[in-house]
């Protein structure tokens, strides 16, 4: 009896130690990434306005700034967020409200297919369909590929937001005798507006952090932002190209861009958490 009790306690202790070690390992890895970004990137960010307003310096010269890539990031993420919202919200509504219908089943498979595809494949498809006919990479092509990558996240989150509305409220909404589309778009979606806003933020977070889809579509215009139909660049693309160069000033810029991206992502993640924790049905 006593031996069994000791064995149980030992097993309990072992599981506790294992879970604590796993948690520490994850925290350690995340902490290392953030700390590295902070140590290496903060001095670059603290250079002040020049980091945000100037283009990168020449190889081996002044550090300069990331303004063209920052502008490219803001423009592509804004367009991608708009496009993924415009397509993702109705798609999520259909996945939730027309559940089981042939069209919804096809849409569900399509959304799953996009979500499971490597994002570089999405970039290649957009390259073939948009960059080749336009004969140039552009901020627009980058935004399209980012919106395709973000779309499944928006659609899935909208579907979950609608599914989270309890049946009692759903019945009350439909009992008003309105057409179904009015009931869904004008009553159910506003009822869980925070959930839908969370979906939009999740989509923009996804667009902000992606590099692979813009590799073939954005171009590599790090010196200036020329417009949405011209070659462009993004912060993640700048990190990808500059971090591997032998030039000290470009590697510093890459670290600064890493920290800026981390700060933007963390802000969006914080906002998303605030919104989703406020959802009370």
């Amino acid at each position, binding site marked *: 009896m006593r031996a069994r009790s000791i064995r149980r306690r030992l097993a309990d202790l072992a599981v506790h130690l294992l879970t604590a070690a796993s948690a520490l390992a994850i925290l350690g890895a995340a902490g290392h990434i953030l700390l590295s970004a902070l140590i290496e990137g903060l001095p670059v960010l603290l250079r002040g306005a020049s980091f945000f307003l100037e283009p990168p310096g020449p190889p081996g010269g002044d550090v300069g700034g990331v303004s063209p890539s920052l502008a490219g990031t803001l423009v592509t993420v804004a367009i991608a967020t708009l496009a993924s919202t415009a397509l993702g919200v109705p798609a999520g509504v259909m996945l939730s409200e027309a559940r089981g219908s042939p069209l919804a089943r096809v849409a569900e498979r399509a959304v799953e297919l996009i979500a499971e595809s490597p994002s570089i494949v999405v970039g290649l498809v957009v390259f073939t369909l948009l960059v080749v006919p336009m004969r140039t990479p552009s901020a627009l092509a980058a935004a399209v590929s980012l919106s395709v990558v973000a779309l499944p996240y928006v659609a899935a989150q909208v579907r979950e937001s609608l599914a989270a509305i309890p*049946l*009692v*409220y*759903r*019945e*009350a*909404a*439909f*009992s*008003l*005798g*309105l*057409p179904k589309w*009015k009931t869904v778009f*004008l*009553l159910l979606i*506003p*009822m869980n*507006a925070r959930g839908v806003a969370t979906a939009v933020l999740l989509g923009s977070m996804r667009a902000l952090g992606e590099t692979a889809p813009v590799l073939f579509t954005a171009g590599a215009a790090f010196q200036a932002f020329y417009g949405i139909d011209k070659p462009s660049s993004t912060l993640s693309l700048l990190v990808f190209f500059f971090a591997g160069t032998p030039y000290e000033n470009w590697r510093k810029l890459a670290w600064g861009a890493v920290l800026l991206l981390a700060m933007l992502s963390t802000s969006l993640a914080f906002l998303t958490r605030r919104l989703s924790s406020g959802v*009370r*049905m």
Partner: protein
Amino acid sequence: MRAPAVRTQELSVWYGQSQALHSVTITVPRGAVYAVLGPSGCGKSTLLRAINKLVLLREGARVEGLVEVLGVDIYRDSSAEGVLSRVSMVFQTPNPFPHLSIYDNVAIGPRLRGMAKGKELDDLVRWALEKAALWDEVKDRLKSPASSLSGGQQQRLCIARALATMPELLLMDEPTANLDPVNAAKIEELIKELSREVTIILVTHDAEQARRLASTGVLLFMGRVVSEGPISSILSRSYSSIIQSLVASARRQQAA
């Protein structure tokens, strides 16, 4: 001749493999309170939700047979949407929309239907709240969240929400079941008052309440019609074991 408010013929409803209603045939006359009586789980709420198609919101629900509402076959006729806009419902648990104010809970139906706006909408909201005997209690805080009201007030708000769309048929699913006796009595008074203007189908497992409020009705047991007709006749004939259990259960609730 005017069609009855509701007519069902051989109505059967399934939830997946489980059959909730078995060939239910009833006729609800216009301009009265029609009670749907029966013990818990006998299919009363399912019958009510088959009349406004809410039953289809449930996963795996399937409906067979005829349901005619105000003369329209709502499961086959293309004009069903129009006729269902003349039907409203009040539920067992008060369910005002949590994201809307007291005013907006009442205004949302007429507003989204384009029935009224501006001053006209304000007047309609006031009329519905007065009908639901709630106006005096909320007139100074119409912009407050509906969740700030008590349970009884929330239920009367839901009645006002249902009335604001000017229904010809009002479905009420045990509207007093979750209320204390004082609030339950207020709702009963309201039902009597409303029955002069609108046809009401009242689901209840309380035989005494059915006797007080309804003139005709149907008694269901295990998804089947036991009897349909005048309430006095349903409650006086010897479907004794079922009726006695209904009456006893209602008395037990009152005593508690």
